[in-house]
């Protein structure tokens, strides 16, 4: 970030001076998350969730590496190594396993709030499109990683989840079955599939880490957005990231870790599915099979297509499900409104909150049994999801009359008070 008033890195300690003049890594950190990165002064707690997602990634990588030291990736040994060895014998294994399993849920919770923040405050709009695009890539990688991780314990849900999700690819005309057999390394999930999922589940988090670095890099070109959607105009609009936002993010992180701890220690199985405590049985599908909660809205869209229309219902469902995510790549060009924040968009914000409700409804029917009434609800909800992005947003972004924007971030914060005191103190500091 290159605001002219950003503090310059000036190491006092001779060791840091020695390092900085040879490899300016301390300078890089200082300018990325230190006092050298000025951030809008009016960020609310919704700007905390990027840091929380980063922490969730680190928690998953660290607990995952340790769990992999005790895991047997074979159809005969996986279930026993997870539910027996790790849970009962490995020192603190139960804690690491529950932290990893619930860590995935926490990861998705913060990522969904992070995405909703972006949708509400127009964080995807110019000049921040690249941040949004990289974010959608991270989301896709995250879902692929979580899916393969869930297969590893080799319970009933693991096995049938692997069968169903690789089955998506069999919907592709002509080459679908070939692709599915290639993915599985056989005709049904077995050792070959479990082993390669283990290998890829280990690989993908590091790919995510790489894209996260690009995501943060792209963020630091224009700098953080803010709840008004008005760009930074001068020094009085910003405060240095450290210590102001390191402290604020630290407080949010403490709340996150409290919730996480309550889940691990008191409700470790609340977000899981009991059937995954039954070992995989290739001859029997559980009567009520549902994916993990964080996939339910997309699963509902998949299930909403029940009628063949030109192409088979199966292909419609798979296209719609992948389409519902790929659609997000086009959002910066579907929303033509120059106003970023929904705080100043009276029409958009109504449809935005209907979308939030809609996704919750999709999540509910995604987990419910496919009886007629639920199918109809899922069809209506899926229709709204697509209509929001493809019809409503492009139309209202042309017709809507936004409320007047504040002249600057500082004006919005002080609401008429003078901002001079702040800028004077910043100059004297």
């Amino acid at each position, binding site marked *: 970030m290159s605001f002219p008033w950003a503090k310059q890195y000036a190491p006092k300690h001779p060791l840091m001076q020695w390092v900085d003049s040879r490899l300016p890594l301390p300078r890089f950190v200082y300018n990325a998350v230190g006092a050298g990165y000025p951030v809008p002064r009016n960020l609310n707690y919704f700007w905390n969730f990027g840091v929380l997602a980063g922490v969730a990634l680190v928690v998953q990588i660290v607990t995952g590496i340790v769990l992999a030291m005790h895991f047997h990736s074979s159809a005969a040994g996986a279930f026993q190594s997870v539910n027996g060895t790790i849970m009962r014998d490995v020192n603190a294994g139960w804690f690491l396993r529950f932290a990893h399993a619930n860590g995935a849920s926490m990861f998705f919770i913060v990522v969904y709030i992070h995405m909703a923040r972006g949708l509400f405050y127009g964080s995807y709009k110019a000049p921040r499109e690249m941040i949004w695009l990289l974010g959608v890539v991270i989301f896709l990688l995250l879902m692929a990683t979580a899916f393969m991780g869930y297969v590893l314990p080799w319970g009933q849900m693991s096995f049938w989840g692997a*069968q169903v999700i690789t089955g998506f690819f069999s919907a592709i005309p002509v080459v679908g079955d070939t692709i599915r*057999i290639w993915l599985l390394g*056989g005709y049904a999930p077995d050792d070959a599939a479990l082993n390669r999922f283990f290998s890829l589940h280990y690989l993908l988090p590091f790919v995510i880490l790489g894209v996260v670095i690009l995501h943060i890099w792209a963020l630091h070109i224009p700098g953080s957005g803010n709840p008004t959607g008005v760009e930074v105009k001068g020094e009085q609009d910003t405060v240095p990231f450290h210590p102001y936002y390191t402290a604020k993010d630290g407080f949010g992180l403490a709340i996150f870790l409290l919730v996480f701890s309550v889940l691990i220690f008191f409700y470790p199985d609340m977000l899981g599915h009991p059937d995954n405590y039954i070992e995989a049985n*290739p001859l029997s599908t559980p009567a009520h099979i549902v994916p993990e909660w964080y996939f339910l809205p997309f699963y509902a869209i998949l299930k909403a297509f029940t009628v063949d229309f030109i192409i088979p*219902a199966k292909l419609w469902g798979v296209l719609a499900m992948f389409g519902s995510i790929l659609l997000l790549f086009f959002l910066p060009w579907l929303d033509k409104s120059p106003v970023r924040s929904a705080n100043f968009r009276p029409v958009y914000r109504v449809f935005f909150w209907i979308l939030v409700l809609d996704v919750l409804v999709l999540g509910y029917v995604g987990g419910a049994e496919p009886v007629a009434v639920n199918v109809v609800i899922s069809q209506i909800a899926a229709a709204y999801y697509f209509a929001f992005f493809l019809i409503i947003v492009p139309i209202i972004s042309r017709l809507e009359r936004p409320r007047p924007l504040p002249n600057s971030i500082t004006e919005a914060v002080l609401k008429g008070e003078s901002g001079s005191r702040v800028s004077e103190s910043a100059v004297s500091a």
Partner: protein
Amino acid sequence: MATLDDGVSPDQTVGPGGEVLENPRRRDYLQIAAIAFGGVGAGVVVLPLVNSMNPSADVLALSVTEVDLSAIEPGQAIKTTFRKQPLFVRNLTPAEIAAADAVPIGDLRDPQTLEERTKEGKANWLVTLGVCTHLGCVPLGAGAGENKGPFGGYFCPCHGSAYDTAGRIRSGPAPTNLEVPVYEFTSDTTIVVG
């Protein structure tokens, strides 16, 4: 310094010392050939990386499965395995055969008669893979007391596909009928699948 614009025709190029080189096309082919060769080399390296994920020799060494039918009473079905997938063998009752034959072929998503799905003279033996053609779950209906769905055959709990007494898709998202594998009767009470 001479540049390409200084009166050099497209058939010529300028050498490092500024001299005009004649017939440069042969040199362009060198570049094309080098890149093409590199591309082929990269493809040849990628191919085994991708192909290693296809079924290995031990998975491909598919054995045939022999099934003894003698203990299956009319109205009963058994589940067994064929190539690590579930296999349903069902002894249809006359009522179930009549129900399957009564369905107008034109009403079906994947039109097939029961006769086409069974062996001649053995219309009561319905042998299918127990793999829903939607996304691969095992439909209910083979075990005693399981939900056979609204058409009296099989019902898949994953996304609600319902199959009739001939294992044909009747409602739900599945695109085709339950697959009938290659099999033959070796005696009146034995089939060999595969």
